[in-house]
């Protein structure tokens, strides 16, 4: 490229213009019109099928085409679910040794406690599957898919309170305002479905603790990325997507007539003023019209066979439940939606943990298991990455009154358990380990940024190259410091 001819420059300019254009538009549809405007030869190129994405991605071999992220909001107790510490049984109500605690900062909810009495889990653990995965009796269904799971027992974060910790998990930064992971993926890889958004969010409320930690729209916000990368939240009441339904009195044929006229008038204006943005708008109105069919078709589960529904458990038909959301997640995955994020609220068990956590597990255990089995039997688990995580763990010492049968646990960021399954992750393994108190990490610590880098890697994205310039920095999901992919858990 040392000696550029004027023709080279023009070519480059055209390409840049196209790129500029695609950056603004969700899909390449309008590109044909623009191509025609600029150079007829380009118009012949079919850009309909080449949705916008960051060119050059994926830049490592992708294993997963999409992610289903089952976020357990409020922070589930690793001690009662996946990280058994049988040695604690003999230490009931004894103080946590100072050598273990090492004076770390605590939330102000327990920093005033005079003692830190150890609270052994009341639940029985067993090993399951060929892999011998430890799962407590709280989750009787999950053992059926034990050999699909890859547990990380050595997760940690720096955040000790919910709001910053969830924000960090989802955006790589503790204060709100950065793009969430789904937005990054949408930005990086674009949409693979021309009738649905690339990033969908669903929220459910736990029965274990109905008054619980709140969520915030910013958790699926696009930050400084264009707003079309925002997660589209499917709602549990009214329209599944905001403003999706035609108003009463305007039926679909009437809407079609309106859009036909609108298209004619917009095209007429385009002919006059020449702004390619108008072509995009025409295309976006048509996409909206298609979504009015594609979304209800997606959320209509009446044709699902009973055998499938049964896998997800008794709540599967109830809109807004975790079970229903899991089923919708599979249907979204089938339609190649890139990033499907579920939030299940209610895991913040400071007091009366056993009562609350058993409710949470009733909500989630069977649907989660059902989702994995359903994906597996359809052959979709190979290219769908499923992630199960909360924002931090819970303490081994009791918050509030301690008995063998009843106890509470405060926030614990220093170690907790998450699991991944499918899409490029080694099945049937356990990674990392904690000490005898599930208080400190003994080996292979995994930071939230490592986890996020690994999820991106499974999608074929080098987390160091997916960045946008912001306030003078190359901003990325995984921060500026060196946080690498956890290669050991990848296929």
């Amino acid at each position: 490229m040392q000696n550029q001819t004027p023709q080279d420059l023009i070519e480059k300019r055209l390409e840049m213009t196209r790129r500029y254009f695609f950056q603004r538009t969700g899909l390449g549809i309008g590109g044909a019109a623009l191509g025609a405007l600029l150079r007829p030869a380009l118009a012949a190129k079919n850009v309909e099928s080449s949705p916008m994405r960051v060119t050059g991605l994926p830049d490592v071999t992708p294993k997963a085409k999409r992610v289903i992220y089952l976020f357990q909001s409020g922070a589930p107790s690793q001690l009662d679910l996946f990280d058994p510490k049988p040695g604690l049984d003999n230490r009931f109500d004894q103080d946590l040794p100072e050598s273990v605690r090492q004076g770390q900062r605590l939330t102000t909810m327990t920093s005033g406690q005079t003692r830190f009495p150890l609270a052994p889990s009341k639940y029985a653990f067993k090993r399951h599957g060929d892999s011998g995965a430890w799962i407590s009796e709280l989750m009787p269904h999950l053992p059926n898919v034990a050999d699909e799971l890859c547990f990380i027992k050595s997760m940690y974060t720096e955040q000790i309170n919910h709001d910053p910790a969830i924000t960090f998990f989802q955006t790589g930064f503790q204060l709100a305002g950065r793009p969430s992971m789904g937005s990054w993926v949408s930005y990086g890889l674009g949409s693979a479905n021309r009738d649905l958004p690339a990033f969908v969010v669903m929220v459910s409320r736990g029965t274990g603790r109905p008054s619980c930690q709140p969520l915030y729209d910013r958790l699926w916000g696009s930050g400084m990325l264009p707003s079309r990368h925002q997660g589209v939240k499917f709602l549990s009441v009214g329209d599944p997507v905001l403003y999706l339904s035609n108003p009463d009195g305007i039926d679909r044929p009437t809407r079609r007539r309106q859009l036909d006229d609108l298209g004619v008038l917009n095209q007429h204006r385009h002919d006059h003023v020449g702004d390619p943005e108008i072509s995009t708008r025409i295309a976006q109105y048509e996409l909206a019209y298609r979504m009015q069919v594609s979304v209800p078709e997606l959320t209509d589960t009446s044709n699902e066979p009973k055998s499938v529904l049964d896998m997800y458990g008794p709540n599967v038909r109830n809109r807004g439940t975790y079970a229903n959301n899991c089923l919708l997640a599979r249907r979204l995955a089938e339609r190649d939606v890139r990033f499907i994020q579920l939030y299940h609220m209610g895991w913040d068990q400071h007091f009366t943990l056993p009562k609350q956590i058993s409710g949470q597990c009733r909500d989630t255990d069977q649907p989660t298991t059902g989702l994995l089995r359903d994906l597996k039997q359809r052959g979709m688990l190979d290219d769908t990455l499923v992630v199960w995580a909360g924002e931090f763990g819970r303490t081994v010492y009791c918050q509030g009154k301690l008995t063998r049968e009843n106890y509470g646990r405060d926030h614990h960021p220093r170690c907790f358990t998450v699991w991944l399954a499918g899409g490029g992750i080694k099945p049937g393994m356990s990674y990392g380990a904690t000490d005898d108190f599930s208080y400190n990490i003994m080996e292979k610590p995994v930071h939230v940024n490592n986890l996020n880098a690994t999820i991106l890697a499974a999608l074929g994205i080098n987390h160091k190259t997916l960045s946008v310039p912001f306030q003078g920095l190359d901003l990325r999901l995984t921060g500026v410091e060196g946080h690498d992919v956890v290669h050991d858990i990848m296929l």
Partner: protein
Amino acid sequence: MLNSTPRFVVWLLLVFVCSGGVEWITNAESALSQPIRFGRDIRPLLSENCYHCHGPDEGNRKADLRLDHAEGAKEDRGGYRAVVPGDPEESELIKRISTDDPDDLMPPPESGKHLSPEDKRLLRRWIDQGAEFESHWSFVPPVRPVVPAVHQTNWTRQSMDAFILRKLENAGLGPAPEASKETLIRRVTLDLTGLPPTPEEVEMFLQDSSDGAYARVVDRLLESERYGERMALGWLNAARYADTNGYQNDKERQMWVWRNWVIDAYNQNKPFDEFTIEQLAGDMLPNASIEQKIASAFNRNHRINGEGGVIPEEYRVEYVIDRLETTGTIWLGLTVGCARCHSHKFDPISQREFYSLFSYFNNVPENGRDGNKGNAEPILTVPVPGTEAKRRMAEQRIQELKAAQQSVSPEFLNEFEEWVEDVRRDLREGKRSSMWQAATVLNAHSTGDVTFQSLADGSFLSSGGNPSNPTYTIKIRPGTGLVTGIRLETLTHPSLTNGGLARSVNGNFVLTEFEIEQGETVSGKATRLAIASAMAGYSQRNYPINLSIDGKSGSGWAVFGRPKMLDTSAVFTLAEPLNTSKETVLTVRMRHDGSFNRHAVGRFRFSLSSSTDPALEGESGLPSNVIAALGVPNGAIGDEERLVLIDYFRQIAPVLAPSRSQVREAESVLARLEKTASTSVMVMSEMPERRPAFILNRGQYDQPGEEVFPAIPVSLGQLPAGAPNNRLGLAQWLVSSDNPLTARVTVNRYWQMLFGTGLVESVDDFGAQGAYPSHPELLDWLATEFVRSGWDIKSLLRLIVTSATYRQSSVLTAELYARDPENRLLARGPRFRLAGETIRDQALAVSGLLEPVIGGPSVKPYQPAGLWEEVAYDKKMRYTRGSGEDLYRRSMYTFWKRAVAPPSMILFDSSGRERCDVSRRATNTPLQALVTLNDVQFVEAARVFAERMMREGGDQMVDRLRYGWRLVLARFPDAVELETLTRGYRMHLNHYQQHPQAVADLAAIGETSSSRQGSAELAAYTAIANMILNLDETVTRE
């Protein structure tokens, strides 16, 4: 060629993202002819690729090499130099960027940075031409440039245009013709007021062919109060204004008084320097007025945490940093926040200097964990403008209505006689019990500043102050007789929270203790009476009535948990019946202690019983004085007794029912007014002693290092002479004439408002990583003009919108698009999508629904159901939609909940109001289409707009369609457009004539529906109106 190599692609993307297409074209094409300029051509390359390791941050500097100033780049490094002026071959920099050896190559391949061949050529030529360094352009105070000479002199209207034209002529381009008058008036009206012009305004402008016609339109718009609202909207985004605290439970706050201040300031054309000083340090001005203190609320708009477990100091530090970052972005256009954890990598702000700036904002007497309270200290209580007059009117009305009730009509007397007979018979026959008699209350007091209002029904309503844990003391005179029990009625009232029983957060109270004392004088000694038992008509789970007589302050009786708050009674039975004399005074004490803040009974009434077994039920329904006046069952009634009875009967006489309900209504109006008579706003204030500030290692609140003191970064200048070294001095420095940045950054934001893109594209970054100005001389000319005019905002805007540049048509040719897709050269007028707020306001305006009230508290218009509930900590966090005018106010008044921002705004790229945001985005998505097609707000507006077309557009269908089109677009439809409208209308009409149900459904949408009749015609016009509101031209400013 396309996407052939990844490198090429990266380079393209880099060029696109960093400098914008045009700048690149300019660079490439001018490369052979123009001299290299360090600031424009070289610094961006070095900053992007080299400064991370060879820039201002010493902590990260590699090989002890600095390339951000001449000394570092040219110093002798022991036999070689990075840059040898005039000799590229000898310059190590050129060798290192050209080598094939990956170990030596710069930037290192693993950095992800990459220099294109074009970049390398530029660097080589720069060294060849002498390797001149310049200070970064924006840190050098602007000097008023000479207005350039141009060829097409008949085009320019003023100096500003010459700068634009010169660059166009250099590029071999010419300006576009002036836009049509219709386009122009719509453009400038939307730009300056955020609303479309009315048909009358359009008509007047079209008719006015005299010279100053356009200038007069501009003057009119700048004088319109709508101007202040429009300008305030942009400022709210910058100032991160919101109605909630933003963390965790996201409690509501009150900051709208500050919003009023901003609107007023713009409308009064407060000079930008005063505007700045009052908002940053109004509280510190000598003899600061209430308005100046309110202005300082600007820097309390940040989020405030209230989550249970957070460490207050951690978040207090975040608030200070938020203030600093906001101030840095808005006035300096610098990303000072980068220096929080380490010295700035690109701009000359060290970490020490960051914390020196931090120190200016660090002295607010605040608590980091106050976010669950609503407004957090420091707070200013201010009277709400205009309420006093309204309150007096309401009081007068109540008096008039009551006076009218005093007249005694024959009907009233008839009813009265009948009632006396009935009651006496009932008492005789035992159908009415006389178990409870209204107590005569001598007085009622409370700790704290609660005042009690005595209501006509004998109850007392708490008002005035609302302290956390008040204790009420009520003196009752029972009269001669026997008292066995006291009944407490807690009553609902419209002035209480949610029309409930208390002024607490949810309308619930917790009565922690109820005590009774007996004395023989009002103020004399009293003895405590033992209470044997208590019972209540309703108790909340875990809050039974007996907890109010358990002697413990941490427990009590509460009544939450029913679907709706209802009147609820409790009865306290004395252990021993009490014989009372004429002098006896009973003192009732109601305590509201414990952790339930403000959970105090809001309205109460007492009655006494002499029955041996006081029960909850058993109303006589009559106060004791009435029972007494009725006399013995058969005896005669004297005149005095008769007056007592008539007085009482006025409260229940059927004939007076309408009058009473008028009084009640008037009283509730008054109660509402009194509740809103004053409000509070969070403001800045300065502690007497400066709070020590430290360099925080890695930006962590708990890792203080060396102590620092307030100071301005050295590279940006120094405080003006005589300015105090505190927040006030900092504000004065920002608007001093020596400040290199403030005027440039400010005029650039206005430029962005009017042209869609700033002269400096990165409106929030004027540092080394920011974009170079497209027209540097013009920027400096405008900046110096702004200061010269006395920071006169209206005159600056007038200057820009009356320029030939602004008045160009935005029609685009393929040639021009290819040449300058982002319109950085301004060879045409800008054409861009309207803000979401403006799109909604426009729909309300053209329909006539827009409610023109300016200022006041935020309102809650239509919002899809369930959005708040779905994510809140419990399902009770509901969005309670407003009604009436609240539905049709301008969008800038829509309640902004940070956790769930108004969806139709966010979908149109509004700032999330989490942090300072001065950028502008205008994406184009299908979800936006769904809003304007289907949101009830827009559909209702379309129907009312259709009614207006039918009402005002004439009798003919064609005229009505033309009228509607013009209402929105200021122009009439052309033949093709009219033909499309007409055909569409006929098809819709045909459809609706056959679908009466659809007609009725469409007519029933929105709150305005009830008074309207549907018809097939209206439905068809509504379908057309709905479509017009979705035209690309409608949502675009052309």
